[in-house]
């Protein structure tokens, strides 16, 4: 029973999902073990099995999970996969921090709705901005999901990966419920932008949380934990102040703000990136990933200004395109360093950590 048979070919096709270095080491062994799990020893039955059977979805899922862990490598992984793993992990944390900042802002709204002003430095906002949140269930769902992202962000930073993953799936599902009911009721102000936000800031990071696994080096806790209040005070508070004082025309929408913030990150990192110092490449790769997310969000949300029911405005399309151009120009400064990161970033040596 030698030679390539159909079941074997099908399984080898699934194994192509794994990185080359790993296949070189384990593929033949995996194929042998896989076929052993199917074959019975009876020639007629085995002939039928080899001809007609397919790897089960559980087998395929186990290979996909293994591939995700290997491509988004941790300690001991080859340089390229370690760099990708670190960049994806940082990008996930940054995207979750956006959610957490919005969650903190939701808390601020609730405080203000109860007559308290936690941010004394900000002028008192118009009454419409501090109206008590509606008691309708979609709004309640939105608030609950918003607060839970703060917990998810903290859990991930503190290394509670499994808890963070479970909570993130639940929060993304709540956001989806809120979004779907808004879509069905025609209540969404910006449907293109809202769906893009959910896909890029909920679904994508939840899937990419597969990058946090047993081999992941610990997250730098304090920088990330401090980044949350810092981002809130440097971005959300000035935005709130501008809106409260009647200067909202100067405040970009969320996709525009994302483009500008990522462009600022690129510019801040450009000097290091251009000096080609070893070790800076992972951060370059991270900001390139964030730029891809911001650009996709910006492009998708332009649909609201072109075809939206509420927001059609050619002037905003021009502004949006200008934000995209700024982002592309800023990313061009760090992109070469990001490309180098794949060969220049060595993973820390593996610690003996069985299983």
């Amino acid at each position: 029973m030698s030679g390539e048979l159909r079941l074997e070919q099908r399984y080898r096709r699934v194994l192509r999902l794994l990185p080359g270095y790993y296949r070189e080491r384990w593929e033949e062994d995996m194929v042998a073990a896989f076929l052993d799990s199917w074959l019975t020893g009876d020639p007629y039955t085995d002939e039928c099995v080899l001809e007609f059977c397919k790897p089960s979805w559980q087998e395929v899922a186990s290979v996909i999970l293994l591939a995700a862990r290997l491509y988004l490598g941790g300690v001991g992984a080859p340089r390229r996969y370690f760099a990708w793993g670190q960049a994806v992990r940082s990008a996930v944390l940054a995207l979750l921090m956006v959610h957490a900042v919005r969650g903190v802002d939701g808390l601020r709204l609730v405080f203000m709705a109860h007559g308290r002003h936690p941010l004394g430095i900000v002028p008192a906002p118009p009454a419409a901005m501090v109206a008590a949140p509606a008691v309708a269930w979609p709004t309640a769902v939105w608030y609950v999901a918003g607060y839970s992202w703060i917990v998810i962000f903290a859990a991930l930073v503190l290394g509670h990966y499994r808890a963070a993953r479970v909570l993130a799936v639940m929060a993304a599902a709540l956001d989806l419920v809120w979004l779907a009911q808004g879509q069905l009721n025609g209540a969404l102000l910006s449907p293109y932008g809202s769906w893009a936000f959910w896909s890029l800031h909920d679904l994508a990071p939840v899937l990419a949380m597969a990058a946090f696994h047993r081999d992941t080096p610990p997250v730098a806790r304090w920088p990330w934990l401090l980044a949350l209040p810092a981002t809130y005070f440097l971005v959300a508070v000035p935005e709130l102040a501008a809106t409260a004082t009647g200067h909202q025309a100067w405040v970009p929408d969320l996709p525009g703000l994302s483009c500008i913030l990522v462009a600022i990150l690129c510019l801040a990192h450009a000097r290091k990136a251009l000096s080609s110092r070893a070790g800076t490449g992972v951060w370059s790769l991270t900001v390139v990933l964030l730029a891809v997310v911001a650009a996709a969000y910006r492009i998708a949300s332009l649909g609201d200004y072109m075809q939206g029911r509420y927001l059609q405005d050619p002037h905003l399309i021009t502004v949006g395109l200008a934000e995209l151009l700024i982002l592309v120009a800023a990313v061009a400064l760090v992109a070469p360093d990001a490309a180098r990161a794949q060969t220049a970033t060595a993973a820390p040596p593996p610690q003996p950590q069985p299983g």
Partner: protein
Amino acid sequence: MTGQAFFVLTALADGPRHGYGIVGEVAELSQGRVRLKIGSLYGVLDRLADAGLIEADREEAHDGRLRRYYRLTRDGRGALAEEAELRAITARLVRARLGRPGPQAAG
């Protein structure tokens, strides 16, 4: 050490086994509770080999294919003994607590 790694090391404790042999032994040891898929098994074997707890023993031809057998290293045997001891202590503590009346029952 994860449950899967513990079962894989235990499956190799009484002698070398090939990939599918380990899957079968783990299912038997766990009374069917742990059914390793091949992708999961080789994820665990890769980590255990990198940690120096298992190593290749030999290769044997079977139906035109090579089956590779794995065995515990000395470090692997030590790690397994240590983990088994830790689990036994934990199990004793749990049994003792379960056997003791709780605050509500006592109060």
